[in-house]
């Protein structure tokens, strides 16, 4: 295996990776092709990238099903949360009603002139 010179190793590595992923065009693609043509170790690098990308893509396309426990948990939590929201709303409304009733019972509400829309 041939040593890769200097600080540009990552750049070369990434450039050949981008070429293997068919993401280079024009001059950049030609530069990568030249590197691969000139150096057998870069050719092998490009082959390795291609193999890795196929493996990633194949693995990515494999069917993965979430465990039923995940789905059950999510739905149960949503039901519980919705129930609590409704209970909160209901109890809030009930509390307000009781408060209104108490206010009415003890005559705490200031008297307002009654109007029926009929004008003064």
């Amino acid at each position, binding site marked *: *295996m*041939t*040593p*890769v010179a200097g600080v540009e*190793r*990552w750049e070369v*590595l*990434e450039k050949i*990776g*981008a070429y293997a*992923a068919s993401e280079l065009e024009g001059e950049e693609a030609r530069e990568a092709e030249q590197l691969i043509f000139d150096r057998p*170790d*870069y050719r*092998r*690098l490009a*082959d*390795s*990238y*291609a*193999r*890795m*990308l*196929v*493996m*990633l*893509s*194949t*693995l*990515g396309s494999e*069917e*993965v*099903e*979430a*465990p039923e*426990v*995940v*789905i059950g*948990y*999510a*739905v149960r*939590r*949503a*039901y519980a*949360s*919705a129930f609590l*929201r409704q209970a909160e709303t209901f109890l809030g409304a009930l509390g307000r009603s009781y408060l209104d009733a108490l206010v009415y019972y003890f005559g705490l509400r200031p008297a307002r002139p009654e109007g029926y829309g009929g004008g003064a």
Partner: protein
Amino acid sequence: MGPRGELIPDRREGSLSLNRGNRNLVVAASRGDVEAFAKLVRDHSGLVHRVALRMLGSDDAQDASQEVWVRVWRNIRNFRGESAFSTWLYRITVNTCLSIRQKESRRDERELGDEVPYLSEPSGGDADPEAATLNAERREEIQDALQHVRAEHRAALILRHMEGLSYAEIAEVLDVPDGTAKGWVSRGRAAMLVVLAEKNGLHRKREAGG
């Protein structure tokens, strides 16, 4: 419905927009309809679990998937449809996984040795790369190698090469500029190959040593 049994994002317009039925479910769920939410969970649980599995490995994927759906339910009222639901879901999934792996997010990329990394030919000399990928050992190697790639780069790599998203979509999911998304994918790809080659080299040495 796709082969995974989940709703397929409509890519005709180059985005992850979803069909009308799905949009209706999102609207209903955002109004507190648990039945609609349950349908969304069933339709998209595969996507969430798949990404969590790739991001975190099997030990943490289940907890992460559950946490994602808790966050989705909690925040769906704030979903305004400015981005596609699937983009929003990818974003919550990736963010949840990143927060679980927060401690490792500063992990430095592997040092690149003096040699050009490479993967050996699949045993048996099979030229068909797809055949090699079916090997369970390879699958495990990939999953393991992914965990050694820096978290943001891993996320970008997974979204690009395993989920098939465009760079614009990745940028939207990760909430970074397009150029950053591209850089992260590139760096993740290189780092992944370095890790795989290391593992491959160790494997070759073990085999040579008998």
